[in-house]
């Protein structure tokens, strides 16, 4: 699970985290009490639909602004450590 979340956990953290998470998961399992067979999920509290914008250009950031917080860059590109193998997903 930590790998999926890209979080490195040290051994001592792992034990605490595991027990804390178990407690929390146990707590949220309270919801199993409720019969929700005929209930639709509510993902948005709003009932809004169809919000769009026009296909009109707006100003982009300059490259300098885009890279201003980059931990590593070469003035044009963001730089990250090597990725082994091909692209991550579809």
């Amino acid at each position, binding site marked *: 699970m930590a790998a999926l979340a890209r979080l490195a956990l040290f051994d001592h953290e792992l034990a605490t985290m595991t027990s804390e998470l178990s407690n929390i998961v146990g707590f949220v399992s309270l919801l199993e009490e409720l019969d929700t067979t005929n209930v639709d999920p509510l993902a948005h509290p709003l009932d809004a639909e169809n919000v769009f914008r026009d296909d009109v250009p707006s100003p982009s*950031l300059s490259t300098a602004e885009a890279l201003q917080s980059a931990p590593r860059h070469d003035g*044009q590109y963001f730089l990250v450590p090597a990725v082994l193998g091909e692209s991550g*997903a579809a």
Partner: protein
Amino acid sequence: MNASTSETQVPFTTIIGLEVHVQLQTLTKLFCGCSTAFGAPPNTQVCPVCLGLPGSLPVMNQRAFRLALKAALALDCNIASFTKWDRKNYFYPDLPKGYQISQFDLPFSMDGTLEVIDPKGTIGPCRVGIVRVHLEEDAGKSMHDETAGSGDTRIDLNRAGTPLCEIVTQPDLRSPQEARLWLNELKLLLVYLGVSDCNMQEGSLRVDANVNLHIPQPDGRIAKTPIVEIKNMNSFRSVERALVYETTRQWGVWQETHAEMGKTPKQTRGWDDPAGVTRAQRHKEESSDYRYFPEPDLVPVTVSSAQQAAVRSEMGEPPVRVRKGLETRWKISAYDADVLVNQGRQLVDYFEELATLIGDGKIASNWLQQDVLRTLNERGGTIEDFPVRPAALAELIARVNAGDFDTSRAREIFSEMLASGRSAADAVLSMGIAVVGDDELVALCRDILAANPKIVADVKGGKEQAAAGLIGHAKKKNPNINPGKVRTICIDLIRAMQ
């Protein structure tokens, strides 16, 4: 079930499905106002939204949705009356938010078809089902720097957020050639609709292929090889070549191992075009649990049948109907219609204008294919910029029909029209071509006959083809003569002689 592929009739069926991503031809990205123009310097078309900066929020591009709707309608899909977007969560440096906004369980369209017919008739009609068409955002570009020892990867996020239509087919294709033809038809359709320019070199169309073999067993069962996904094909030709290679490879593996689908996980292989082979790619860890959930920063979209009708009405004709229309209206062959349609809507418009003016589709088609297209291919340029417009060409053709000059002369005049921009009449004048009047022609023929008694004797003796020898003399006397007319007149004159 067809036997398939190579020259040796091998007893298996190739099963191919395609997954195509097309970039929609909008001015701006799917969720922000950054430009989608191709070829800009790195990281110059980015903003907080497509950079995934903290606090940034997406807002849907209306035109992108409309174009996607057009594509789905043209592919005969069912349009969902209610659709929503979902987050596809994974980590990769070209995906700055750490998720891609895509569509998971309620895509805006499903269940379509696109048929392709090969006008050459080498492959039978191929009806390919479309599983779904959905709308999602593109990721940026990552470039691995092999040269520098540090092994950095460079990230350009210009492309991040570009609107993409993902088109997934049923595994209905049965050969690599079918796949290429189908892709051509898809590209033609989307270009005709103005949905995408489908330019693989610029990355506005990308294809992945899924392929396996169905092998009938002695006991009547069908054995199926594991499905392989092929990536990294950069042209339709590459797709065909990769599928040919892969089919052969899988057959070889089958004969050695008899490994069937289900026992091994789906493999991904990359096509190496220079080497002409597919190579296994590193197996992706955690086989992608994307943890899809509804995108809370976007609201759902509803599409009414009235809205569908409105989009349909502005769609224009798809290539398949244009072809049929040309064949029916102008009595040209399926092959000719296909050639014209493949050149695009503008050339078809040129053709129809020309054919209308001269009242003959076949002649118009011949001129277009032989002369206009040849010139365009040699010099480059588009039909819109082509200097000889339909009316001018029609004028030229009319004079050919009237017998003023033969086709080869007409071609010379055509070249002059191209070079100088003159009308047919002006070109004729400037070239000093004067049409030889009939009386003059008859007089000239009498002169030639008088000067060539041997030929006259041959013709009288029954060898009409000898009359051809008179043409050269006639031309020397007057280069503007119409050879066909000269021949006819001479033979008539000879017959009239005693």
